[in-house]
């Protein structure tokens, strides 16, 4: 129990679709729609899913940029949704965020030193701000002479390092990373992924790592959660997921990723999903995935499958999970 850093219970975040001058709400975008998950101390939980499935909304809700419609967010056992302004301010020290776009997440008019110092100044944690900033810069691999430079003088990878330095400045307990490498070029992605791993080891950080790129996830995550239309479809340990993912959607995701290996690519059995992601304003009834699921049956259209335990730390929300026969394992899982 004490191992649980963050626990989310049945979280819902609906955005009203407002129309007209009196802002009559005609419908809701159900960005996060009854989502539960747990993050343990010191581990990395990766959340994967396609664009628009609610990943960023989840992140923003946890960090308090939005008030959720309902649900609970327990941080170290306390429901942060009941926090007052003061408590919220204190909580922010413990939860920090690294953003997706290294170009828009840094104020273009502030010097690197000031960007990293902002949280330190907001909480007045240390007298010698500059010293601490230089320390952090060293930690993320930025040269001290960059202190007075402006963000535009840096490459994307370097900028992302600045963002990371800012996020770890207050020694938070949890860092939420919303697609921190998806905007980076492949050759540079690797640098940042490595940095994340190193920092975790060094500072004993806990990550909630959001990504749509399963190959990145595979390199960084301890656990993987697959999200679809505001819900968790499957959640398991990294190893288990890549070996035995059993939700049809997880499998589709896994098989959709092109491998930089022509032979495997050509022999691989893929599951190409039909159709597009339905609109989160009108999610399908029953299992939200049924419209694109190759195995959908009538029961899927009528009832919503619960997130059920399937193995040690392995949960699936599906009536007809894919069974992996030992022999097939290798093939279904790409390598």
């Amino acid at each position, binding site marked *: 129990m004490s191992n649980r850093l963050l626990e989310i219970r049945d979280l819902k975040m609906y955005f009203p679709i407002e129309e007209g001058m009196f802002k009559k709400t005609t419908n809701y975008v159900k960005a996060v729609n009854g989502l539960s998950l747990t993050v343990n101390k010191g581990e990395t939980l990766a959340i994967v899913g396609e664009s628009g499935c609610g990943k960023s909304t989840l992140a923003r809700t946890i960090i308090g940029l939005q008030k959720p419609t309902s649900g609970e967010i327990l941080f170290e056992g306390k429901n942060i949704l009941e926090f007052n302004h003061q408590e919220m301010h204190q909580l922010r020290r413990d939860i920090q965020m690294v953003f997706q776009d290294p170009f*828009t997440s840094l*104020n273009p008019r502030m010097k690197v030193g000031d960007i990293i110092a902002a949280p330190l100044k*907001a909480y007045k944690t240390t007298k010698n701000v500059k010293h601490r900033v230089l320390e952090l810069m060293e930690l993320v691999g930025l040269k001290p002479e960059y202190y007075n430079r402006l963000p535009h003088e840096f490459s994307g990878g370097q900028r992302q390092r600045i963002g990371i330095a800012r996020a770890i400045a207050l020694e938070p307990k949890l860092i939420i990373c919303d697609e921190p490498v998806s905007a980076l070029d492949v050759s540079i992605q690797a640098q940042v992924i490595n940095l994340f791993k190193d920092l975790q080891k060094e500072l004993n950080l806990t990550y909630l790592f959001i990504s749509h790129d399963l190959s990145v996830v595979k390199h960084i995550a301890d656990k993987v959660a697959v999200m679809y239309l505001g819900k968790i479809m499957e959640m398991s340990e990294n190893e288990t997921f890549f070996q035995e993912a059993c939700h049809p959607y997880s499998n589709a995701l896994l098989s959709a990723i092109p491998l930089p290996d022509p032979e495997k690519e050509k022999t691989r059995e893929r599951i190409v999903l039909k159709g597009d992601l339905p609109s989160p304003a009108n999610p399908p009834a029953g299992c939200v995935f049924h419209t694109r699921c190759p195995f959908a049956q009538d029961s899927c259209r009528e009832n919503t499958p619960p997130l059920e335990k399937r193995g040690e730390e392995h949960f699936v929300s599906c009536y007809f999970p894919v069974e992996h026969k030992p022999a097939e394992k290798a093939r279904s899982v790409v390598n």
Partner: protein
Amino acid sequence: MFKKKRNLLALGVLLLVTVATITASLWLVQSPTYIDSHQRLLGPSAKHWFGTDHFGRDIFSRVIVAARVSLFIGVVVAVISTIVGTVIGLLSGYYKKADFIVMRIIDGMLAFPALLLALALVAALGGNITNIIIALTFAFFPVVSRVVRSAVLQIRNIQYIEAAKTTGVSDPVILFQYILPNVLSPIIVQGTFIFAKAILAEAALSFLGVGVNPTTPTWGNMLQEAQVYITIAPWFSIFPGVAIVLTVLALNVLGDGLRDAFDPHAPAKRKKRTSMVSNGEQKIA
């Protein structure tokens, strides 16, 4: 932005006019108000470079001194309306609750053509410099607050603002240290244009007879007085007219140049997915 000759020239003109008016009392030989009934309506000469008016006053010195009033009104209106507009725009862009009501009021004010609003206000308050400044400020600040508000609305959702929030930076600091500097460029551009418009508006009000006290030399007053003499003493009208056009043109050119300089899209619009931008080649303004 000063790579363009046009912008440089405009800045030069403005500096010249400003310096000339500020230092006028040091070097002006002729008094701008001295009435000499024997020297009426004389054409340009060595003594009176721009000729004399219907009172025999020296037009050159009047044009120079008038610049002071016109520029003063322009600057003050530009500064006050940008400050007022900015504060209102910032607050209503940032605080959703205030936004609705404030914007309805601004909408209401924007429902009047600026010149008409100023005209009605000046007619109501009486035509002196303070009232003209008040009236023009009222006419122009709503535009600024609109511009600022929409800039804030755009910027508010940019990640570095959210990033600042999540690192615990307080609202006022975000508003004034993060958002304000980033909306400064449209504000400065607006300010420059308002400066130009205010000078024109002052002239128009004076022309309509509700402007600055007619005894004060302003470009508008001079043009109004000169109107009758346009055929018999064209210089009376031409010099103040050209002075207005040059000054306002310089301001407009400058504003235009600033807009281009500030606008990240202006030269080559390129989207970048990437990290690969080295050498500071890409800037985000």
